[in-house]
């Protein structure tokens, strides 16, 4: 069974204080690893898809990286509007029928 573990569960940051979120995964062949942002009362908003170890993608203050066992979401100089829950999900190459297996999320609060 595909497993995704995210840490830390919750994180409080001062504005401008850079940090990293971790997503460890176990999957029967990785087709893709997805990062989403979810604000309260809303659906997940797509950020990145990573496919292979060594891959990196950036968007504004966010940078996602991937190894064979984990992914990191680096938040550089965060602003209060970066406060959200960040969700990691994996898609298996074999037997998963493209469904996503989600972690429980990293809840990030950025304090002005």
């Amino acid at each position, binding site marked *: 069974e595909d497993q995704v573990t995210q840490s830390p569960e919750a994180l409080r940051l001062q504005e401008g204080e850079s940090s990293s979120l971790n997503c460890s995964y176990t999957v029967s062949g990785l*087709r*893709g690893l*997805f990062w*989403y942002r*979810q604000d309260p*009362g*809303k*659906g*997940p*908003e*797509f*950020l*990145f*898809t990573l496919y292979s170890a060594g891959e990196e993608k950036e968007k504004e203050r966010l940078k996602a990286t991937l190894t064979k066992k984990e992914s990191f979401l680096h938040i550089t100089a965060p602003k209060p509007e970066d406060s959200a*829950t960040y*969700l990691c*999900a994996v*898609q298996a190459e074999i037997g998963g*029928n*493209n*469904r*996503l*297996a*989600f*972690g*429980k*999320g990293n809840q990030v609060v950025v304090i002005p």
Partner: protein
Amino acid sequence: GEEVAQTPKHLVRGEGQKAKLYCAPIKGHSYVFWYQQVLKNEFKFLISFQNENVFDETGMPKERFSAKCLPNSPCSLEIQATKLEDSAVYFCASSQSRTGGESGYTFGSGTRLTVV
């Protein structure tokens, strides 16, 4: 439109009543997925469609849950006799490609079902 439209936003049902949720995927997206989010961020896959055909229904509690995606109609998820444990937010997601690709899957804002 460019968003996945889910209705209603909130639904309250007495235990044993029927609940029906709707999802209009983005125009041109052939793949639709339903997920259930319970407690704190625990997403559970329910079912997926390729156009009107069920692609994967391994997550569905089949005795009470059913889903359809018919041509020219919103997709629907129906729970025949709701239980307290069905209380959750139900999300629909759509995509042009089966794997999500570089654009990922686009999620709707969800329907919050409360069973009392």
